[in-house]
């Protein structure tokens, strides 16, 4: 019997695995998708090879890429960008680690307190979270982002908006700043040359400004896995979990099994309380099933897969909130075309942001050509100049919102992708019961009934809709201020990429799945420790830091509640994930 089984090696699961492995527990980490242990041989940085959602090495599917991806039902025009594989969606993320806004915690008393989603706050105060933020910020590590030209241009726009520069970790009000991101900053020749012969580790350290964040980070060349610039969990927490015996005094290396799809969480009545006892998983390649028991089971398969596994396991759902309250920051996409190069898409994918609590935020985003064309074609407003699909909002941007395709798209990029600055609109969206995951009526796959993701894109709360319009206008002002010749708004159909709160932690047992410790209300010993456990959409900041901080806190609670241990975050110092002991041990393991 294991001490702990963690389901899912994405943004959250490896945090629990690493923390509890460091305390000497026997941890099994199961991942449904592939383990890319040798990215230099398995990856390429080409968009179709990497990001084709059906065939790419970053897709939702088994390791064997000749087999189909896993089909999920989306009952609307939308795109749910799930990834399987060790690292989960952090494999393609841009490494942004902003803290959640204080206004989404239950002790907030600022002047704008009434402007947030007050019904769905975190069941504790912001101050409670700060030590966990700090612990993760040191571990990852999180640093102030360097600038390329696209950031310089973004800031030029920000400077016209009469806003202060944020110079703290905590966001206290409308402001702009470089991202605090989990990217190792450029050192040596990195960022200072385009000559590939000069960009080998350790001559180059940290981010080389290659612009391939979305295709996976495997640079600088020759660096140990835990020295790659972008701190996806397959570069940070997973290596630490697998080497916990060498960097933690009482540590014990965690066991990782990939291509292993968990199909069932087992529970039984013990002392009058339903209690988790273990899991069954299935090897993707052979179909062989395995069952293993554990004292504690941690679900971390993501906002779409956790509800599926819960419901397929027949676990109780007394208040009906399993899968409900899914938040996605109701993204939109506004971009400017300039007469000169603004450096897109070189450098870190996104290294500048603007925060505007309690409405949302903006960040610049660098996109290579295929992803750019994809982004131009994901809209709920039809095709510009042709039809508006009942929407096609107008404003300070040029013309109606809608898809840019055909001759218009070609003309736009003919001046060069470098001349386009894209701004992601990140909405502070409300938790809503009807944005949810259910089990699809479509046929089951080999792992059981599949999930259906349902978003009421056009019928969100008045506050959510207001926030999105406000931030789209703010993005337009920013781009005009930066000198854009033309500004376009796409009105994205839901691009489900920042995902939160579908198994939410809450103050009330009436509308939450887990309690304030991260333990499920219905099943003792069953915890949720990824972004699905977040209480809400955080006010709009990118969710990874808060997810990992919460997962760290949950790991502490597990250690106290089930293993008689003491908390450590307030008394110990974290080890940084780039620690050379981790590098050395990875080399010994052939990783």
């Amino acid at each position, binding site marked *: 019997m294991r001490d702990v089984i963690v389901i899912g090696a994405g943004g959250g699961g490896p945090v629990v695995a690493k923390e509890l492995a460091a305390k000497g527990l026997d941890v099994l980490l199961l991942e449904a998708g592939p383990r890319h242990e040798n990215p230099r041989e398995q990856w390429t940085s080409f968009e179709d090879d990497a990001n084709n959602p059906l065939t790419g090495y970053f897709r939702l599917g088994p390791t064997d890429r000749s087999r189909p991806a896993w089909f999920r039902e989306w009952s609307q025009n939308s795109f749910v960008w799930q990834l399987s594989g060790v690292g989960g969606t952090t494999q393609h993320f841009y490494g942004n680690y902003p803290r959640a806004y204080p206004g989404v915690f239950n002790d907030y008393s600022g002047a704008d307190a009434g402007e947030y989603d007050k019904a769905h706050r975190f069941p504790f105060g912001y101050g409670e979270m700060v030590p966990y933020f700090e612990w993760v910020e040191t571990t990852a590590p999180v640093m102030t982002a360097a600038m390329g030209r696209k950031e310089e241009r973004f800031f030029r726009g920000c400077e016209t908006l009469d806003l202060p520069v944020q110079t703290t970790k905590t966001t206290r009000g409308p402001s702009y700043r470089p991202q605090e991101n989990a990217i190792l900053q450029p050192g040596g020749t990195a960022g200072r040359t385009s000559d590939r012969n000069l960009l080998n580790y350790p001559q180059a350290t940290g981010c080389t400004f290659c612009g391939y964040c979305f295709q996976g980070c495997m640079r600088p060349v020759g660096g140990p896995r835990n020295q790659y610039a972008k701190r996806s969990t397959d570069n940070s927490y997973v290596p630490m979990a697998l080497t916990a015996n060498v960097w933690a005094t009482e540590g014990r290396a965690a066991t990782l099994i990939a291509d292993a799809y968990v199909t069932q969480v087992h529970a039984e009545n013990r002392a009058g309380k339903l209690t988790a006892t273990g899991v069954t998983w299935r090897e993707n390649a052979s179909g062989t099933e395995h069952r293993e028991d554990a004292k504690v089971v941690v679900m971390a398969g993501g906002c779409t897969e956790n509800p599926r596994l819960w419901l397929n396991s027949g676990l109780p759902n007394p208040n009906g909130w399993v899968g409900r309250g899914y938040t996605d920051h109701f993204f939109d996409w506004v971009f400017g075309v300039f007469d000169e190069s603004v450096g897109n898409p070189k450098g870190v994918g996104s290294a500048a942001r603007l925060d505007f609590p309690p409405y949302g935020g903006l960040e610049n985003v660098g996109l290579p050509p*295929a992803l750019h064309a994809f982004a131009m074609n994901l809209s709920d407003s*039809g095709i510009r100049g042709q039809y508006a699909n009942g929407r096609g909002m107008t404003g300070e941007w040029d013309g109606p919102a809608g898809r840019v395709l055909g001759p218009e798209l070609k003309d736009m990029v*003919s001046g060069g992708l470098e001349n386009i600055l894209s701004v992601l609109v990140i909405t502070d969206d409300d938790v809503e019961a009807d944005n949810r995951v259910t089990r699809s*009526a479509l046929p089951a796959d080999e792992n059981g009934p599949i999930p259906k993701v349902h978003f009421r894109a056009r019928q969100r709360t008045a506050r959510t809709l207001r926030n999105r319009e406000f931030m789209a206008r703010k993005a337009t002002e920013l781009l005009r201020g930066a000198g854009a010749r033309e500004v376009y708004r796409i009105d994205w159909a839901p691009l489900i990429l920042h995902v939160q709160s579908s198994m939410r932690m809450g103050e009330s047992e009436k509308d939450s799945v887990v309690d304030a410790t991260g333990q499920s209300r219905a099943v003792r010993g069953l915890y949720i420790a990824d972004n699905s456990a977040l209480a809400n959409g955080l006010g709009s900041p990118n969710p990874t830091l808060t997810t990992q901080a919460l997962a760290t806190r949950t790991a502490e609670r597990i250690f106290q509640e089930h293993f008689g241990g003491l908390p450590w975050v307030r008394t110990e110092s974290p080890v940084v994930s780039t620690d050379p002991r981790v590098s050395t041990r990875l080399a010994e393991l052939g990783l």
Partner: protein
Amino acid sequence: MTSSQYLARRAFLARVGILGAAVGAGGLLPRAALAQPGNPLDDVVALLRPVLAKLATDTMNGLVVFVCPGPDEYSKAQGTPRGDPGALEADAARFLTEALDNFVPFPDELARPVTAALTTGLADAGIELPGLDALPNEVATLDKALGSLLRNDATIPLSLLIAGLLNLVATTVNPAAVNGPFVSPFARLSFDEKARAFEVIETPLASLVSTLDVQLPQPLSESVSGLLKFVGGALLEFAAFGSYGEYAVFDRETKQLTGRPVGWQLTGYQPDGPVEGWDEFIGYYQDRTEVQD
């Protein structure tokens, strides 16, 4: 089959593109194969299979140039010819077909009723199809062959179902599209008409769902309009991704490019090919390298 049913069936086959592709002017099926009463059905089925594949390809060609036109006949036909390379040079139609047929695990429970609709569908009488009379009359044999093929082939390519949907909608937007160059009615539309077709798909009117005549069992029937909205969006997004990606020139064995991708040519991306990094680091904003609360 009564005479009016026969006409409606004939109109349906014309609208999804099958009649024209098989036996229209420039049709791919030898007339003789259908005309000779003694010809075994299996022979017609064997002849029909490549016709349907061609119909799907032709429809995909018409689709991808809508998203990324180029110097080809399809772009010319939609009224937006370009001098620079486009979707066909990027092999985006094959990209889309391969993705649809091999990597979208389209559930049988959905494919079967859609296939049944193709096998038995009748076009509603409300739409005049000019030039339908010009199409030959050998529907009965063709229909039997189609029915046999759809019933017996293990997997119906999703690209064929999508092509049928696009062509059916195309003939709603412009009934004259049942005849003309190419074999796909959708490929015969102008750029504006193609946009109108997507408008119809994205606003799944009850009439479109009933025109498709897909009888899905409960509770799947509620999924149809959602699926149509999704399919409409996904076709455009994937066509765009395929047109601007490296698909046509990526060698999966060597993991190298064999030429410069169309998307890179169009956007000026990576003029000297893939990189390990760029000399793009220009410092820290206001020289601040660290923040604290």
